[in-house]
């Protein structure tokens, strides 16, 4: 996957480049709009990360300009601004995504994956999800572990489904709040953790190999190995 990173802050650019390369992306970086324009038009990128606060051009204007020049790749907008610009909302409608700084790396990677998936032809929607001995029937809203039916509330099922779809990858609390409850909030209290503890109590029975793992300060991961 070829990725163009447009970010003027050298610190952020360098750690993003390292993490993205670790995650398997082939990264080209640009520190201003002009360089980004040259790179984007020449090389064919699968995805772009664009910071809104560039020294020479506004990030949104750059994206619109690139679109005019025929760049079709989806864009993940990074914003350190407080309010979400109406034009960002416009781009979001058009299939791009945004992330406010500071962010968790896991969330950045998840959003990138989402954007790439959205742009690839949709795989036929599975009706069953399987992670190791955990199995989810998406039609009957039923989960089983080693053939044993788990007594889950509808909300717990949605949470487990989200973890399964991202099995093996880290999901952060704000990602869970966004995707499962549909809200971008940062509670002062451990509301998400309690949901996870409860779910873990039902999924990881005594004597079974624990599947849901907590990565403190980062989030959770559903083990697939």
């Amino acid at each position, binding site marked *: 996957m070829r990725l163009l990173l447009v970010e003027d802050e050298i610190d952020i650019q360098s750690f993003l480049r390292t993490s993205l390369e670790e995650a398997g992306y082939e990264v080209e970086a640009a520190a201003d709009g002009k360089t980004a324009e040259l790179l984007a038009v020449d090389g064919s990128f699968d995805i772009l990360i664009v910071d809104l606060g560039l020294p020479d051009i506004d990030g949104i204007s750059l994206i619109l300009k690139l679109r005019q020049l025929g760049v079709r790749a989806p864009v993940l907008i990074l914003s350190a601004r407080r309010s979400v610009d109406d034009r960002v909302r416009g781009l979001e409608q058009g299939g791009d995504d945004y992330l406010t700084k500071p962010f968790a790396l896991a969330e950045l990677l998840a959003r990138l994956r989402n954007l790439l998936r959205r742009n690839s032809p949709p795989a036929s929607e599975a009706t069953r999800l399987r992670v190791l001995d955990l199995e989810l029937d998406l039609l009957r809203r039923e989960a089983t572990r080693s053939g044993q039916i788990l007594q889950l509330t509808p909300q717990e099922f949605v949470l487990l489904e989200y973890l399964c779809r991202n099995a093996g990858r880290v999901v952060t609390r704000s990602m869970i709040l966004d995707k499962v409850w549909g809200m971008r909030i940062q509670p002062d209290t451990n509301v998400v953790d309690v949901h996870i503890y409860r779910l873990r109590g039902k999924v990881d029975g005594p004597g079974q190999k624990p599947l849901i793992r907590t990565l*403190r300060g980062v989030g959770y991961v559903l083990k697939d190995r």
Partner: protein
Amino acid sequence: MSSKTAKPVMHSAAWRISLWATLAFACGTLLVFVFLHQFVANDIQRRSDAWLSGEVEVLGDVAEQTPKNALYDRVVGEVAELAGKEVPNKDLSAGTSNDSVFFLQTSAGGAPMLWVGAGSGEENLKAIRAARIAPDRPTDLRVRGFGIPFRVAATRIDDGSYIYLGLSERDELRVLRIMRLRFLLLWLLLVLLGFGIVFYTAHRMLSLVRRITEAASRIGHSDLSARVPTSARRDEVGSLALTLNHMLDRIENSMHQLHTITDSLAHDLRSPLTAIRGKLEMSLSAGSLDDNSEPIVSVIEELDRLTEFLNKSLDVAEAKADALRLTRCEIDLEELLRIMIDLYEPSMSEKGLQISLQSGGPLKIEADEAMIHRMIANLFDNELKHLPAASTINLLLKADESGASLILEDDGPGFDPEILPHLFERRVKGRKSNGHGLGLAFIDAVVRAHGGAVSAGNRDCGGARIIINLPL
């Protein structure tokens, strides 16, 4: 026109102004007329009196000098009749003869000696006997059968008899009556016309003021780009509109300044935070999860708290200046609350808290969904942090014409009485609180930005009560 003009016209300032102006005008003109009327009536009487005094003197002389023979009655009678003819008689309704003047001579005892006038003079004599008229000063005399009193002058002549000359002022009074009637009609017409003109001008003037008021009230917390309508005329109302617009320009400018400051502050703080967080996370994933990672993890958590604190601080700062930027859409407050309760319920029951919602069904409001989410999260976080175990939280959601109201009641210790008057100020928190004292200030900020109001206090039976009102 908006609903504000639908109220009865009687309640408008234009109506009151025109009513008072018309009242003053009507009273003034009435006063002037009464004065004029009095003047004319007095003048008429003065003229009559002068004539009467002169004539009665002449008649007295004639009566004195005429020898008391068979011709006396004829001579004096003819002189009296001649005098009577000087008085015009336009009102002939009462009869063909002139009954507006009479001449009467009586003996010292009061017996009639000579009568010149219409009719027999019986009634006139009776009235004169009853009235005892002083000589030389004309007085009013009411005679039965005549609607209008006679003006009567008397004189005593040498032989001891009295001479009376009476004059009715009915012609003059008739003219006065007609004048009064016409004036009244004209006055009524003028008053109505005056009211109409004053009302029309005042209404036009004030409708411009009302349009300015309406436009000014529409210029909301977030939208400062609108301006009030101006008029081409450079009068008081026109300059009011211009002044308002200049003021709005200045407010918009300072608002823009504030946004620039908070935006750049946020940007300048968030960029290093992003870099720090990213580097920490990288060192975390590189060394996998061992004992060394614990300090890093807690630093990351502290960073996240710092970020949220920064966001809230800036939101509260903007909201205190009525400059919070909202993206409104229609949301169902009831559904939103149910989802949030669903999110918080496990944490609450973990702590032994019970939460319940009473509501009358879906409740649609125009609001910024993300802001309302954060506000409710703050409210619930507050409860989670401060309530002792085994407390209950009751939420009551209801709607009326004025808007939606959400009432939160708990049976915990309530607010510290010391901080109760300053609950919604920044940095205010109870002694035992470990928060940063932004929760309630943020709730207040969001609600105010939506044009609503929050109040908080302690219940009589203990526990806290927070009432949030939001417009629909």
